[in-house]
């Protein structure tokens, strides 16, 4: 696959999804970027903004298997990964057989992930990181591409279990689903209240998606661009040399996964723009979704209600693109 073909398929995919999803162009691009970078996405937004529809439409457009798990407090890990059930053959002999859970899919929607207990949430850890599931001593490999989109509601906090840092760190992006603008809202009303609902058709095969993922990893990154990413991640930690806000409000900065997320997603963005190299602009555009969920605020940050996006913006502002240069 060439970068031109990549850009063509990407554009086709975007347009197909936009037939169903109104507005949210940036969000849609970022979801596609995360998918092609081989990462997972945590969507945060109030109910009714089309999060579930977005995931469903994506699965339809890509011809990939789609599964959905509604997380509730009584959900158990076995409900996600599957369990051994006792079976009986024709001779009457009983044996255990592993019954695969809903995680065995390609696009998984983990709806309201913060409603399940941490024990259940952590059942997804292995699947998200290694793309494998281990149950009763047996390891099962998930089919590629494996893409998890989790949603959570930021307002209703009662009866929820905040995602542990280890779980959060496994998401490539945390995306905020904003309320649509008035013209978009009118378009949503128009599209969804007619007798014929728009449907997405398959525009890219599984193989094409895998080729796009492989091509994205071929994109070149110059040393000084990599150094910039390292300095940005370093500046999120409250140490000497960190950004002003990070020093004041952050308890723990981003993990190295943050840097990986920035580079991988920037590679996909570069291909989207028809480039074969990563630019500072790619990194700056994707820094907030890559890093915002990896910053742990200190007491002062929590008390002041500091948004992690503001810290990422401050880090970018205070980190020069070239080492030693002044901003």
């Amino acid at each position, binding site marked *: 696959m060439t970068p031109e073909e990549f850009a063509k398929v990407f554009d086709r995919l975007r347009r197909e999804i936009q037939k169903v999803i109104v507005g949210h162009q940036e969000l849609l691009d970022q979801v596609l970027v995360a998918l092609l970078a081989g990462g997972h996405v945590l969507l945060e937004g109030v109910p009714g903004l089309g999060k579930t529809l977005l995931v469903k439409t994506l699965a339809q457009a890509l011809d990939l298997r789609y599964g959905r798990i509604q997380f509730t407090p009584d959900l158990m890990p076995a409900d996600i990964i599957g369990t051994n059930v006792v079976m009986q053959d024709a001779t009457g002999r009983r044996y255990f057989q592993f019954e695969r859970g809903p995680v065995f899919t390609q696009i998984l929607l983990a709806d309201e992930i913060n409603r399940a207990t941490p024990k259940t949430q952590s059942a997804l850890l292995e699947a998200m990181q290694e793309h494998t599931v281990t149950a009763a001593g047996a390891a099962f490999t998930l089919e590629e591409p494996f893409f998890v989109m989790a949603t959570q509601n930021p307002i209703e906090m009662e009866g929820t279990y905040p995602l542990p840092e280890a779980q959060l760190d496994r998401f490539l992006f945390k995306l905020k689903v904003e309320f649509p603008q008035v013209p978009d809202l009118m378009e949503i009303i128009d599209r969804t209240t007619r007798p014929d609902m728009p449907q997405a058709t398959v525009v890219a095969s599984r193989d094409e998606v895998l080729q796009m993922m492989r091509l994205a990893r071929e994109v070149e990154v110059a040393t000084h*661009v990599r150094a910039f990413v390292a300095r940005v991640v370093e500046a999120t930690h409250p140490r000497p040399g960190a950004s002003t806000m990070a020093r004041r409000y952050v308890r723990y900065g981003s993990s190295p996964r943050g840097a990986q997320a920035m580079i991988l997603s920037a590679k996909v963005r570069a291909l989207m723009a028809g480039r*074969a*190299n990563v630019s500072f602009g790619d990194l700056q555009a994707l820094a907030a979704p890559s890093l915002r969920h990896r910053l742990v605020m*200190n007491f002062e940050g929590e*008390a002041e209600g500091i948004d992690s996006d503001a810290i990422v913006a401050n880090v970018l502002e205070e980190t020069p693109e070239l080492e030693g240069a002044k901003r």
Partner: protein
Amino acid sequence: MTIEPGRDLLRLVRQAAVRLTASRAVETGASAGALAMGAFVLLNIAGVAIPVSGVPLMHAIAAAAVAVVLAGVLAALLRPVPRSDSARVLDATLRLEERVSTAIEVLTSSGPRSSLSSRVVVDAERRLSAVGVAAATPLRIPRTVWWTAALTALLFVMTSWLHGITIPGTPAHRTAEVIRKEGQRLEQFARTLQSRTRTDHMPATRHLAPQIRDLGSRLQRERLARAEALARVEELSQQLAQTRREIDDRLQAPMPAPSRERVTSDQLRRQSTQRQIRQLRELLSRLQHDSPSASRDALDQLHQMTAGQEGTQPARVREQLQRAREQLRRGNMVGARDAISDAMLDLQRLESLMADSEGIQNAQQEVERSQAAIAGGGPVEGQPEARETDQTSQSPVAPGEQRPSPSQGEGTEPPQGPNEGSTPGTGRRDEKIGARTPRLDTTKTPQRVRGAQADGPVASSEIVGTGRSSSSRVQAADISPAVIARADQAMTRSRTPARYRDIVRRYFRRLAKLR
């Protein structure tokens, strides 16, 4: 023929690197020039308060030009812009989104290349060729050049109109005063010297005296810095030394060889020469009478004159005096008179040289004193002014209480006595003079009772009363940093419910104010 991909890109980036290096060199040179010029301006400004000599405009311009060239060349040689840096500059200025820098890295690295590497190179090459390097790296006149020009103009104003201006009360002003006074003194001395040259025949001194006078008047008139004044004084001093060497050589030449090593005072030599001239003049007037007695007297006198003056008389004079004696013995009065006249003329020439030597020596001493005074920032020891100041600083003395003059041993301290008498150094006295001082009259008052502590009951009582409101006598001490750190850690670790956060925050703000 196939063109290797990246060749053009490398050429263009190299071209950009050369332009950037040149640009940086010009910038560094301009900065060095501005710095140099700034330093000269500061030096000139400092000259208003402290006695430092300002730099003339042309010297400053020349020095700044040298600094510009040196700094520029060094910057170009020692800090050339590398290819990778110039690629980054091209990316930034042409908004090429790191295409060129990535391509250069791909081309120059020896590591494995990805399938998109060649595409990066081709893309960067195409875009850079389309734009052109000159557009990305224009050679501009650095802003510091205008600073240099402004500083040069400022220096011109300072050297033209503000030269030599000093603030009263500052060391620079004191130095200027010293220079002016020394100028006055030199001018005065030159006038005296000139009047002496009118009476005495001193051709060299007559020639040099106006120069001394001119220097004196210039030291007064022109607002010269210390170094400048010293340079002029030094120049004159060297001229005087040169003239004196020439005169000394001429003085030593006609003398017999052994006399050169004899230590004879110049003054004594001159007096002796003057005496001989007088004697010869007298002799000539006697020989006018042409009598045998005068001839005999003249012979005796000539004998006396030549007998004891081997060291001080020039050989030529001695020969002429010998010739005069022979002529007298032969009775040739005319020949004798001629020989004596010749000897007298020679002696007069010698005396004139001696007078010149003395005059120039005096001038040299005066000029050296001035030099020392200007260099030291005030009148030197032994100088008339300094002596005058010493004398005036002493308190006036009543008649009859005049101290003995320094020549009578005032300079040395009297021998130290046994320190028991009221007047040290005058000897021992059995009785003290005068009444006892009040300090010695005081009596000692006992303040302590001595005794031993014995066993026994100790009575104590406790008084309970209301406290008075006043400030604490105990100093407020900081809370241990370790405690604060522990509290902060505890606060950071604990999760605070959203609805209590405001309350907690207010509490800690109040606490912080108290702290």
